């Protein structure tokens, strides 16, 4: 676990950690600015940006029209000409609207220009269901951007990682998409008093174990940790590996854990089919093939649009219970 115990920390919510990352980078570098809908006085609907406009003013925390493609394009142009914009896309579901600016423009700017142009652009957005927000406000679309060469993709799970990765993203000379699970904003965790960054491309073992590896992304890390607790009571030792970033992906750490335990479950909140879980599973199934004692199992969101009704919505997401059942079946303890 990279959240360090030697340094002085405080407990922050993930929302506070993100806010701190932005404030620090806005302070550090005058070319950083935030652009998005209701980001200024409102501090976004999730209040994650509360207080920033008061410190940095409306020229650096910019309220925009409801124009996701336009905002992203404007940010890209600013990025190509000397600034470091952080675009706020309120719901990850609205990635649908900005894929051209992100995938055809930002991701390809550096390569297509033979390295002469750069696009140091950060897109912050959300993922995650169970907020009773229905099909157009509950998706986890990180697999789309992870599929695009030229983009970096972060899926932090803890306040520590969220802050450290966002700071790295803003300083990165490439377009980076950062996903925060909207259900995690009130999740608390230790965050160092002192400045730090988390490097993009390094996985983190959130819990060490011997029998089963659970590779879990974003808030699914908590699902995995809860399952690990329950499994410990059953005598099954679980290692929880958090890739933290999907692109670049730290395949080494994932494969090493899979080789050690021989049994792997991938838990991700994107739809299962053609989701991030497919890549993670394919990587370990190939890389740890000779060490696997059982097929790699995937638990993604059900392949249905996210329904509104709580009794239905709760069916669609991976749960600790399902992770436990899957792990037990892998170690041959039950069906």
């Amino acid at each position, binding site marked *: 676990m990279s959240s360090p115990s030697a340094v002085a920390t405080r407990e922050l919510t993930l929302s506070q950690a993100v806010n701190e990352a932005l404030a620090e980078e806005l302070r550090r570098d005058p070319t950083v600015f935030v652009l998005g809908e209701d980001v200024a006085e409102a501090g976004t609907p999730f209040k994650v940006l509360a207080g920033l406009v008061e410190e940095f003013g409306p020229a650096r925390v910019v309220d925009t029209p*409801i124009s996701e493609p336009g905002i992203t394009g404007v940010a890209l142009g600013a990025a190509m000409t000397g600034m470091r914009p952080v675009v706020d896309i309120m719901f990850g579901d609205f990635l649908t609207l900005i894929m051209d600016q992100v995938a055809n423009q930002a991701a390809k700017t550096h390569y297509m220009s033979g390295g002469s142009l750069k696009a140091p652009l950060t897109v912050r957005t959300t993922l995650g269901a169970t907020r009773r927000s*229905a099909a*157009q*406000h509950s998706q986890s679309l990180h697999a789309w951007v992870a599929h695009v060469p030229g983009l970096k993709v972060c899926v932090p799970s803890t306040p520590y990682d969220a802050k450290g990765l966002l700071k790295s993203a803003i300083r990165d000379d490439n377009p980076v998409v950062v996903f925060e699970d909207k259900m995690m904003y009130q999740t608390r965790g230790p965050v160092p008093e002192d400045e730090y960054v988390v490097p993009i491309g390094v996985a983190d073992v959130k819990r060490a174990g011997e029998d089963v590896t659970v590779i879990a992304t974003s808030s699914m890390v908590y699902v995995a940790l809860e399952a690990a607790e329950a499994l410990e009571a059953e005598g099954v030792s679980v290692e929880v590996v958090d890739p933290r970033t999907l692109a670049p992906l730290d395949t080494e750490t994932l494969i090493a854990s899979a080789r050690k335990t021989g049994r792997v479950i991938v838990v991700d909140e994107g739809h299962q089919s053609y989701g991030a879980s497919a890549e993670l599973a394919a990587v370990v199934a190939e890389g740890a093939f000779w060490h696997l004692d059982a097929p790699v199992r995937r638990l993604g969101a059900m392949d249905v*649009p996210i329904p*509104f*009704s709580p009794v*239905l919505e709760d069916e669609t997401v991976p749960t600790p219970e399902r992770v436990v059942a899957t792990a037990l079946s892998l170690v041959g303890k039950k069906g």
Partner: protein
Amino acid sequence: MTRTKAAPAGVDRGLGLAMLERMLKIRAFEDNANELYRSAKMPGLTHLYSGEEAVAVGVCSALRQDDTITSTHRGHGHCIAKGADVARMFCELLGKEEGYCRGKGGSMHIADHANGNLGANAIVGGSAGIATGSGFSAKALGTDRVSVCFFGEGALGQGLLYEVMNMAALWKLPVIYVCENNLYNEYTSYEEVTAGTIPGRAEAFGIPAADVDGQDAVAVYEATSRAVERARAGGGPSFLVCATYRYHGHHVGDIDRAYYRAKDEEQRWREERDPIVLLAARLDAGEELKRLQAEVEAEVAAAVAYALDAPYPDPSEVTEDVFA
């Protein structure tokens, strides 16, 4: 609701009272939805239409049942104005099996196919294409039905709107774009994010645009009737900008909002520009108002009770209707 030819001086009394009843029903529906939220009986959040009733009712009163509408995240008013049953609507808000979407859509996705409501939409401006396409099919299939696209002024930020207005104008599609300008995009004043003029956005495509007092149901009805007539006659699309106001927060959870919207601004609209009060006054409907109010409140209360008791869908339904 039957169509009545608008006289310049207003609408006939029967239609006027029918509009009043619909507006009262919307108000009562929203008050109850708010209460369901506050008492933690409703999952999630919802966006209330209170204050804007004259727009939905004025527009839909000029439509036939087979005319279609597309609606928004703030869609209950459109839904009721187009003829939906409030019990099935509450069932949907509560995620119940008997809801319009069998609990799968919730407040932001109610669709009422039988009454021509092609659905609320949680993507701002997201239904502009659908509405224009409904106009396309109306023309291509040789019918004289029209299509209404409701959207908040925030949707003026979405490029899609301009793309489809261009096509509607080129192909003379029977589409009426109804911009509900309630002055705010969530927590931001529309003036801070809207350059130029709103009617100009349509006129640039050769679409006639009219500014309408969105608190005056009769004015909305008349403007819509003119647009409908033009559309049915093959004259093509129109654009209405209805000036209106939402009484509540952006959604039911938006309580502390003085930082973006002054309390006395809210009070002024409520006291001076209430669409129900204005229409009742115009119709001189003292007695009828009370009667209608009582009737509507009873209907809505019964609908709430029904919905609260109604069963949830079986969890197995989660995998149904992914594909037709």
